[in-house]
């Protein structure tokens, strides 16, 4: 068990190295985009030399000939830059985000410049930082809240539906639940997000219809009408301004949850159906154990081993979904930052975001591998 875990962990580290190197090469070798970034920061009259020195100073922070010769520095070989980046990455110095104008990771009491040094006034007093947390800390927290609230209802309902469908394999309940879960897997986030927005947060939606309906009974325009005009659910969930609340999170959460729900439900159903068809369940039923007890104490435990792995392996999809949803609903989280970084060619932040998302995915895979062994008694003893 322990040796298995160590081996998996080494594979994880190796994958992380390979992946981060490829990401770094893809982003760093894109010199035209870097030059465009420099021109965007410095203005359209920038000469190539100025652009080059800006890139060397602000992004690579390096020149063997010293500060004065930045413009004449030849670009470093990419593996050397990668090594610099990696040694910074390991100790938590992830660089400076050009788009957000602040450091990427960590807590800093004082304002930092793009080289990670404290900005001082003329009198040498360090300037205090109103916004001390780095981009990734802030954004990943916001996304973590969203992902957490997505995950709980999604997993709960998926397991419930899957178990109920798998318990009665072949029945009408099973059929209709299967079709339901197929239907939800055909709704990617950018489709369901739009449907829910129109349904719940526009003057065409259900709240408007309710208002119109109640208008017939002349319940006048107090309650529902104000609902229709200002729906309680926010189509634009500004996490920045509003923090987190039910109104902010409701639409994003159901949007992501719906897409992931179907797959987990179907896997749970398959696993449950397999367990229900096995010998020991038949024995229990023939022995006269009540059906409720058969399902709850005999079948359920074994049937939930496979879905556990599936759920953990859903994380890459969840992460992709969260990015889309954050763009749709303007929720200022990790995905929003990634989108902004990528469209503005924010070198350090793109690399950081990509590597962070890969780390999250690899860690969940690791947990799923280990958890599978811990949950499965047959494998545990080996």
């Amino acid at each position, binding site marked *: 068990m322990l040796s298995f875990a160590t081996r998996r962990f080494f594979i994880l580290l190796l994958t992380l190295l390979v992946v981060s190197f490829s990401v770094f090469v893809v982003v760093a070798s894109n010199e035209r985009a870097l030059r465009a970034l420099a021109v965007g920061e410095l203005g359209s009259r920038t000469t190539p030399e100025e652009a080059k020195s800006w890139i060397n100073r602000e992004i690579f922070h390096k020149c063997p000939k010293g500060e004065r010769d930045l413009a004449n520095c030849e670009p470093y070989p990419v593996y050397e830059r990668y090594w610099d980046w990696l040694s910074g990455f390991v100790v938590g110095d992830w660089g400076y985000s050009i788009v957000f104008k602040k450091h990427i990771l960590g807590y800093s009491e004082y304002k930092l410049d793009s080289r990670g040094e404290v900005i001082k006034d003329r009198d040498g007093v360090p300037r205090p930082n109103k916004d001390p947390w780095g981009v990734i800390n802030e954004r990943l927290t916001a996304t973590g809240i969203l992902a957490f609230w997505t995950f709980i209802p999604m997993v709960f309902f998926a397991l419930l539906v899957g178990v109920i469908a798998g318990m009665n394999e072949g029945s009408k309940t099973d059929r209709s639940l*299967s079709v339901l879960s197929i239907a939800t897997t055909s709704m*990617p986030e950018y489709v369901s997000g739009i449907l829910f927005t129109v349904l719940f947060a526009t003057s065409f939606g259900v709240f408007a219809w309710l208002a119109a309906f109640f208008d017939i009974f002349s319940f006048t325009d107090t309650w529902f009408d104000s609902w229709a005009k200002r729906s309680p659910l926010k189509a634009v969930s500004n996490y920045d301004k509003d923090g987190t609340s039910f109104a902010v999170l409701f639409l994003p959460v159901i949007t992501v949850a719906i897409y992931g729900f179907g797959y987990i439900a179907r896997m749970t159903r398959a696993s449950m159906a397999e367990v229900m068809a096995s010998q020991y369940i038949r024995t229990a039923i023939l022995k006269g154990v009540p059906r409720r007890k058969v399902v709850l104490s005999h079948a359920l435990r074994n049937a939930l081993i496979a879905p556990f792995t599936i759920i953990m392996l859903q994380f890459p999809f969840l*992460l992709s979904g969260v990015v889309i949803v954050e763009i749709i609903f303007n929720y200022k989280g990790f995905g929003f930052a990634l989108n902004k970084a990528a469209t503005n060619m924010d070198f350090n932040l793109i690399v950081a975001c990509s590597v962070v998302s890969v780390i999250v995915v690899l860690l969940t895979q690791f947990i799923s591998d280990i958890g599978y062994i811990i949950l499965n008694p047959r494998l545990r003893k080996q």
Partner: protein
Amino acid sequence: MVFFSLLGEMFVTLWPVWLALLIVMGGSYMNRHRMGLYGHIYDSPVGMIGLFLVLFWVFCALLAGFMDLYGPLETVKGMKNAPLMSVPTTVENAQPFIFGGDKIQRDVFSRIIWGTQLVLPIAIFATAVSFTVGITLGLAAGYKGGWLDTIISFIANAVLSFPVIVLFYLIVLMGKESNLPIALAGIIFLFPIALLFFGLFGYFGGWSRKLLIACLIIGPFLVFAYLRLAYNLPGLGWLADWAARTFGGGDQETASSITIWVRDFLRLPGNMLNVFVAVSFASAPGAFRIVRGLALDTKTRDYVSAAETRGENAWYIMIFEILPNVRGPLIVDAALRVGYTTILLGTLGFLGIGLGTESPDWGSMINFGRSLLRIYPHMVLPPAIAIMTLVLGLNLLADAMREQSLKD
């Protein structure tokens, strides 16, 4: 009331589709007992619904030319943000805009129908390419095992550890300015050729004169197609001129259309190469995993050992013994994967890094109309529902095929 006239108008406009659906589905339903797996789909209502949805969009793509539509980029005066079923007043006897007009006065309905001609071919061909990658590598990794399996699986897992969106940002957005998509295209488009070569190699039992002759016959065309698709091989102007002169018959219009056809033959225009590569690259590791699993499962069967005892070539065993015997799960997975590819394509369009804002593919349409969603949902809802129904159809179809193949 608008709703019913909308349905009626849609029914009339789409007449070629209904006709084709009636002929194909009716005819197949009559002869369903003679048609193998395809006929079995008609035994389950779920499968019929799925097939109906899929064929509906396929016929929309094939028969769009016969319908009374506006052009995908055609603008009509006075139709900016027009509501459902509004009729242009500036043109006489004009067709109504069934789903209204968009921000720049184009007909949403027509654009959706034209969009099928982009969405379906890209989804299908990208899936096909990712499957050839998956089959070539998956068979080799599963059947041969060893260090080959270790290396290929490691790479596949590394690609799979990216969330798709990050992959898209890296390939398409970063790639716009660099040679990355072309490099990836160069790798990905090698696999169909490799699979064909290995098939011939196995079929002729290793190196032989017949193999050489076959390669000489089909090789040049394949190399041409490869260079054209992956590297956009230039310099076909003289060929186009020659074809126009020879086959044009002195007619200016025919000659220019021949020139355009030859010049654009097997060429992926604009951003399409990037999109195509990104989508097939994202979906290939999944196909690889499935094929590898199936190959691992199948290689212990008796017929494989029999072939090994006969002294058959390894590629013969992989392609002519293992592959045909795992076709069932592969067909089901292919249907699911076309749906997934459609979703990926929509994602690219939605993020605004797809085929471009002008293009009538559904994801880009959603992105284009999204800013006005809460005032004018009619620009965004139809393409969203189009994506949903196409993917739903494919998923239902795959589910029905799986059920029916389990029954046998």
